[in-house]
């Protein structure tokens, strides 16, 4: 057996996995931030990613935008959509039982999916090639320019996000609301506004993921958000739901595991692997890889 070929193959799959994984990570961030702040699994989040892909699609085809303006436009539109969804669907249920909000989230998800089919038709669209595909061969491992792009955009967005959450006033307010909403209110923090901004940021990141996927796989459809949405949710749980670095880590791990399973076993088992991860993490470490049980001091 040729070990160096095997080694190259492993490295190749890891690289493929990291690019898909950073997409999962971008979506997972929205899940985890929203969960961290209002304890809601926003099932409509995967559909915001779809919305972002479509905005990107129309910007590049109809309006002839280049990649960067299309990306920004998709993020802005999705951010506004996220804020509207929160305002219209979730805020009126702020003090309702959690199950009511969860069911509403599923309803919003279906609305976006089938409303999407109604508006843009169910057919799969071909995302235009906004980037010329160049393949780089680095010692036998092949990296495409799209993969580089995905990784670069993801890293930049995650750095900006981390800076915002850790250093800025609004980021500190977000962490405060997430830790203790009433205490945050007593600081004079406008909790409704912070929740709104959290939805905007999470949705913007999901939209970026949607555009990147369009660029990577060249095809988009109104139901494209279902599977990546679920997987990003698993990624968020894997890393520890509510924990931002956890979502990044979980996303990358998910992508790499999927790529390895596809490459060495069969791509048929790719989705099974994702759900197996969910089962294993829930059995072994329900708080997630970076989660810890916080003990309260009296």
């Amino acid at each position, binding site marked *: 057996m040729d070990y160096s070929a095997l080694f190259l193959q492993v490295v190749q799959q890891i690289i493929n996995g990291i690019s898909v994984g950073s997409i999962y990570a971008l979506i997972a961030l929205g899940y985890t931030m929203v969960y961290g702040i209002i304890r809601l699994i926003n099932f409509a989040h995967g559909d915001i990613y779809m919305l972002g892909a479509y905005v990107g699609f129309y910007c590049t085809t109809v309006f002839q935008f280049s990649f960067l303006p299309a990306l920004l436009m998709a993020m802005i539109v999705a951010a506004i959509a996220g804020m509207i969804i929160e305002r219209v669907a979730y805020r009126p249920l702020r003090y309702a039982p959690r199950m009511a909000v969860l069911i509403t989230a599923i309803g919003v998800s279906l609305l976006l999916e089938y409303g999407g089919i109604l508006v843009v038709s169910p057919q799969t669209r071909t995302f235009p090639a906004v980037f010329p595909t160049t393949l780089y061969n680095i010692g036998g491992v092949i990296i495409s320019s799209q993969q580089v792009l995905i990784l670069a955009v993801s890293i930049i967005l995650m750095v900006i996000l981390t800076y915002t959450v850790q250093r800025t*006033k609004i980021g*500190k*307010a977000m*962490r*405060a609301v997430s*830790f*203790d909403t*009433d*205490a*945050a*209110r*007593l*600081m*004079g*923090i*406008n909790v409704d506004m912070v929740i709104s901004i959290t939805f905007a940021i999470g949705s913007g990141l999901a939209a970026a993921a949607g555009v990147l996927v369009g660029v990577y796989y060249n095809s988009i459809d109104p139901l494209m958000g279902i599977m990546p949405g679920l997987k990003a949710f698993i990624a968020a749980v894997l890393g520890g739901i509510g924990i931002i670095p956890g979502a990044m880590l979980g996303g990358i791990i998910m992508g790499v595991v999927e790529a390895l399973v596809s490459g060495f076993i069969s791509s048929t088992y790719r989705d099974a692997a994702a759900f197996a991860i969910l089962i294993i993490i829930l059995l072994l470490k329900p708080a997630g890889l970076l989660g810890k049980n*916080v003990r309260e*001091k*009296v």
Partner: protein
Amino acid sequence: MLKVDNINVFYGAIHALHGVSLTVNEGEIVTLIGANGAGKSTTLRTISGLLRPKTGSVAFEGKTISDMKAQGIVKLGISQVPEGRRVFANMSVMENLELGAFIRSDSAEIAADIKMVFERFPRLAERKGQQAGTLSGGEQQMLAMGRALMSRPRLLLLDEPSMGLAPLLVKEIFSIIQEINASGTTVLLVEQNANMALAIAHRAYVVETGRITLEGSAQELAASDAVRKAYLGG
């Protein structure tokens, strides 16, 4: 300065406050004493805008605040140190203090006020980079108080500052409350430790099962038989 007028507050179907009225005058320390579950914290939470009275009103300096949101009430100059301190345990001491100044944007003055808090609570200065969750109970209480002062309140609401603290620390905390009051901040203090509260307060109210049952100057209440029996251990 603060006028709570006949408020009725409910938690769902539970009637928690039955027509509670009280006033706090500028410069005073007023204490609200009573047993666990009597409605003391509910009163403070209503004043801060975390709960809404079903009937009755709360006014601060003549302005009705019982229909305002919590952030508006903080901006008017009412700050609360909540029961159980509720510091942001996953954030540093410094960040907790910065959050206390959330409604302000005068960064030079905020820095000066953080310095002032560190002078008042030197132990916080030593631990300014430490996560608040790693502080001792007494230090967390100091942090919660420092954080509340960062919004420059004119009325400070304190909910059970002695809870879970060793007697020596309780003494220290209470003398700091007197200092804060002496430097011009009006104080409304909720306490189960009636002895300590009556020792530093000017006036006091006794709350029982959601109603004010007694009120008067702190000395009067400390001397009254009913209070001595129920709250001062004979």
